[in-house]
């Protein structure tokens, strides 16, 4: 058993993940149009680490998260979780796998049922999946609540009685109560204030240290991702443009998009004046993305080859992959 765990050091491997949404408009004689929300994305996550997924809104980072959990069917590719291909597992088996992968949603106001008391919200799935024997149910829930910084008297209270930060604690408790291995956090901090954000980040880090969870942390806030992640993937318009260790990405960003993204983060020091790379225009429509490199319409270093060939994700340093023609594609 021990040996297998060491070999399968990667808890999750995503290979060539694709998710296309068909557009409802049919046009005769033409092939059907698709929104390519996620187009050929591959990455691996090591057990017990955190991977950050960054990108602008509409770049497909949430779709990646949902595809991994198979909250919707995927168009192509493989999602290998703990040695099993999730895309091919029959539904009955998938249901048994569900407790191992959990999700924390962005908006703590809409993701909690207003009609259930906190104890029930946290415990509903625990009962359903029979995580603990019935006799231990209550003590298990209370323990989880204590872990997440919720007082035991909240057990019978309803979500509307809580502030945003505490609601997010409830969502975390709900995910953690199932004893998962892998948690997807879909922008869990974006609805919270700075001082509360820090509390939630600390909570998530503590839980990870204590129980060894693996996180996929989806966010557009680079400073949070920089703080919490071990590896970082940068997405643009459905594809991964750069992926690597946190240090390598932040010390030596290679893709022009990553550079622009990093330079756009406001720094809280009035004396530091950044050489800001301001991207012109908006993210193009994913229905008909630019040919070749998708970033070429906003790129400063656009060359001839960029419109002809799609750059491939290549490794340039150890644990640092970039998809850009600026770096020789050999």
């Amino acid at each position: 058993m021990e040996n297998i765990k060491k070999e399968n050091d990667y808890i999750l491997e995503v290979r060539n993940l694709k998710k296309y949404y068909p557009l409802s408009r049919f046009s005769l004689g033409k092939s059907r149009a698709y929104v390519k929300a996620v187009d050929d994305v591959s990455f691996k996550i090591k057990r017990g680490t955190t991977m950050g997924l960054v990108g602008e809104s509409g770049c497909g980072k949430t779709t990646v998260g949902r595809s991994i959990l198979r909250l919707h069917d995927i168009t192509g590719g493989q999602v290998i979780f703990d040695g099993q291909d999730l895309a091919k597992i029959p539904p009955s088996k998938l249901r048994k796998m569900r407790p191992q992968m959990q999700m924390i949603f962005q908006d703590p106001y809409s993701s909690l049922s207003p009609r259930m008391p906190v104890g029930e919200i946290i415990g509903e799935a625990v009962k359903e999946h029979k995580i603990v024997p019935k006799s231990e149910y209550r003590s298990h829930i209370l323990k989880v609540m204590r872990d997440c910084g919720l007082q035991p008297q909240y057990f019978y209270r309803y979500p509307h009685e809580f502030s945003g930060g505490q609601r997010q604690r409830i969502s975390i408790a709900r995910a953690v109560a199932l004893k998962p291995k892998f948690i997807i956090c879909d922008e869990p901090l974006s609805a919270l204030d700075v001082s509360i954000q820090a509390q939630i980040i600390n909570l998530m880090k503590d839980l990870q240290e204590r129980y060894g969870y693996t996180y996929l942390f989806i966010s557009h806030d680079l400073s949070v991702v920089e703080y919490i992640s071990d590896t970082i993937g940068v997405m643009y318009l459905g594809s991964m443009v750069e992926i690597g260790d946190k240090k390598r990405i932040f010390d030596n960003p290679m893709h022009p998009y990553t550079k622009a993204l990093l330079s756009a983060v406001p720094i809280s020091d009035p004396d530091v004046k950044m050489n800001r790379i301001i991207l012109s225009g908006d993210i193009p429509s994913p229905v008909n993305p630019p040919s070749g490199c998708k970033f070429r319409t906003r790129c400063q270093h656009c060359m001839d080859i960029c419109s002809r060939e799609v750059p491939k994700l290549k490794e340039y340093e150890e644990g640092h992959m970039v998809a850009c023609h600026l770096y020789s594609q050999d």
Partner: protein
Amino acid sequence: MGLKNFFERKKIEGVDNTMYLTLREERRISKENNRIIKYYERQKARKNVPEEEYLTQMRDPNNVVEFDNLHTYFFTDVGTVKSVNGVTFDVPIGKTVGIVGESGCGKSVTSLSLMQLVQAPTGQIVEGSIRYQAGDGKCYDIPKVPKDRMLKLRGKEISMIFQEPMTSLNPVFRIGEQMDEVILLHEEGATPEIAKERSIAMLKSVGIPMPDKIYTKYPHELSGGMRQRVMIAMALLCNPRLIIADEPTTALDVTIQAQILELLREVKERINGSIMLITHDLGVIAEMADLVVVMYAGRIIEKGTVREIFHDPKHPYTIGLMRSKPSGKLKDNRLYSIKGQVPNPINMPDHCYFLNRCDMAMDICHGEYPKMIQYSPTHFAACYLCGESSFPKNDLAKE
């Protein structure tokens, strides 16, 4: 489940029921509120008010706006919420003033008070004054200005950019119609042709490609960044002297945020106006603002120039805010976090509001609310902690 739950709940934890009001008490509060609200509403609805009543003098002619001991309360059925509780600061001409604070600290209500847009009838300005220096040299005391006069100031001289560009643009009218309306309302003798020409020119000046096409589009056809540009264009149409930007970039991506901030800076130069920038992002403040006001639970706890606030913060809350911003450069594995949360706004304590979250609380903090202490001509903070160490500096400031 319901009834059993109810009894169990009382039995087990002995929940403190102080936040629940009896029916009688609730009725008493709402009666009281009605009386107060009626008084203020009658004051505001008066017609033909003589000008002398709302014209005043500025303390310093270099300021556009002076907030002086402003109190804005909300009279709700569960009690009075003191949203803005004695706020004093100035907005100098040609400067950007940043207001920072957590949600619910009253930063938006402060700006809405200036526009007379506080949600009436529950929300009322009960005390204090906001002096506004208009372009024609007159100086208005905003809380006393009657409604019909305010219509001429709002949108023309003071304009506002809201947080959600989607909800603040009307979805059933084209961009052009909404923009023309501003000109037609505020400019005398403006014809629809002139209005259209100016709207398109303004759209072009905020960096919108193909402005005449955007002019005929509906808000939902534009992206978030584009909508925010339209909002900015709309705010600029009548050459305002003051722009209030209420979290203008919170709903946008970092790359678009950088574009919008750049645009705001450029716009400020062009019109030589002032900006009141409300945000909770310290990074945005550091980049944009000249002066910073930090608010907590309805009061200003610290104010000063950006450098003073960022390099030499005095109040534990300001320091906490700075330290709780995550960054990968931290040596320590744990992020500093301010414990607890903002106290219930209905019954605020008598002592310092930050006391129960403060790491550096002392005995004296349980006394009355600390006074504003001056450290330099521009730097103020309300905390006992830094009060003692600053006495020599304080003397210097007086000299």
